[in-house]
């Protein structure tokens, strides 16, 4: 089977000169749930964002489902993004509208711009949106404005929006970092289950070691923009993973990692 994601020597340097990604090579098999770990500032967010060019990589190559992302025209890029759900730490939903409307926004790329206007959304899209909300357990809150929902509920609305894209890949940037433990567990379980039942590849940036060990099949450790660790979960000890965060866990290893 062809790879879901292929990265070759991916580099990203911010305008202030900071090298956030320093040559990342990575191949992700389809259907895997992969955890991206590393301390603050290791480059996890930058890596995920560069994959769909929410941030432009400086050099290197990104391929998603055999389509080249780097160098794609804006139209081709939209076509690629259509198959990729992106989950953010801060949910990034449209706060002032209903959960339902946020989910139908996920259908715009596939079903056309009329899905952005509630009155024009086709009936089958509306049904599918209810199915997606049902899948994340929020069908009863379809009408509720997003800014009245809890963090865990918002993140599940965001997952429903990405399900609406019928994604083959979901990129999740710290999906549970803003949530309390119970809501975080629910979201991680949801991601694992939809990955298993729909064969969706999931790459989740997780800085909590426990979540990474509990839910992923493979763990990538980043440090200062490089892949420092790449193991399948069953061969990895928690100690080895903790090492990634530096020997003295009380200091801010993130800043130290940058200076290396």
């Amino acid at each position, binding site marked *: 089977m062809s790879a879901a994601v292929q990265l070759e020597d991916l580099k990203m340097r911010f305008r202030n000169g900071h090298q956030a990604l320093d040559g990342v090579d990575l191949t992700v098999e389809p259907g895997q749930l992969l955890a991206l770990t590393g301390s603050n500032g290791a480059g996890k967010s930058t890596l995920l964002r560069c994959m769909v060019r929410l941030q432009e990589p400086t050099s290197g190559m990104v391929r998603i489902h055999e389509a080249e992302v780097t160098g794609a025209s804006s139209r081709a890029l939209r076509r690629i993004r259509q198959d990729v759900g992106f989950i953010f730490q801060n949910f990034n939903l449209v706060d002032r509208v209903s959960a339902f409307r946020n989910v139908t*926004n996920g259908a715009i*790329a596939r079903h056309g711009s009329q899905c952005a206007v509630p009155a024009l959304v086709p009936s089958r899209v509306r049904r599918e949106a209810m199915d997606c909300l049902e899948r994340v357990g929020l069908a009863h809150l379809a009408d509720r404005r997003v800014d009245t929902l809890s963090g865990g509920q918002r993140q599940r609305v965001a997952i429903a929006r990405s399900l609406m894209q019928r994604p083959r890949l979901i990129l999740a940037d710290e999906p549970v970092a803003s949530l309390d433990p119970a809501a975080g567990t629910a979201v991680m379980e949801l991601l694992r289950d939809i990955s298993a039942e729909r064969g969706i590849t999931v790459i989740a940036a997780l800085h909590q070691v426990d979540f990474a060990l509990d839910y992923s099949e493979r763990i990538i450790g980043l440090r200062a923009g490089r892949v420092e660790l790449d193991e399948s979960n069953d061969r990895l000890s928690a100690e080895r993973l903790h090492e990634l965060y530096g020997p003295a866990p009380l200091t801010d290893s993130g800043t130290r990692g940058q200076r290396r």
Partner: protein
Amino acid sequence: MKTKHTKSDNTKPQDMKTEGMKTEETVDTSAPALRNADPQTPARFTRPSAFAFVVLVGAAALLIHGWTQGAVVNPAELVTGAGRLGDFLADAFPPDLDRVLPILQSLLVTFEMALLGTIVGVILSVPLAIAGARNTSPHRSLYYLSRGFITVCRTIPDLVWALIFVIAVGLGPQAGVLAIAVDVMGFCGRFFADSIEEMDNGVLEGVRATGAPEHSVIFGAVLPTCMPSFVATSMFALEQATRSSVVLGLVGAGGIGVELSVSMALLRYDEAMTIILAIFIVVLGVERLSAAMRQRILGGGS
């Protein structure tokens, strides 16, 4: 912004706690120290900065020059002026209600002029604002073009626009409608664009990341997010337009202003007073309506 969000993971609460403690400590120790020791008491007067000095001198020069040109407030003339104002009021009351129907009619036309001008202006402001907001503009050149256009609309006073449109489309309310529309574009275009720029970039990214094209990002995320502020701004614009539509008649752009200037010129102050009172009631009504609507929309937002 982005850095802040991504870095806010787990360390933030800790950071904030230590910071909070630190400030408390400094306050505790330094407050008594300040009272006991006597470092330097701040001077009673501080010397103005060079900039303030230049501004003050400039303003003084302008006032002196204005004096020579008649821009003065002369107490003696104020007294005689007050007397003449008394004559005016004596003539004006009781207001003459003979022509109240035609007056109300042309007041209605004035308000309709303001309403139509505002609607046209608001509708045109939306695309202008989208092009003139950094985070939604299709191209940098369009951004500057739109912002420039908005600035021109805003900086030229509506009375001047009215004079220009009277030349273009002739005397009458149509010139007034156009003048108001342009004025509203200057006002709403700017505030709509600012409100789009204030949007959380993450919300836009969230929709863009689904592969949605830019124009549906506008409909799916930008408009619903900015709608309350758009409506509130538009209501302000309608208030302003109602006020200025009264004056536009003075330069021939239709409406009640013509009636008022005719009554004044014919020294029919009692009739003028009817007009002024009618204007007062209408403007006040629009203000109240607009305030109520803004209250509803912004109040319901939280």
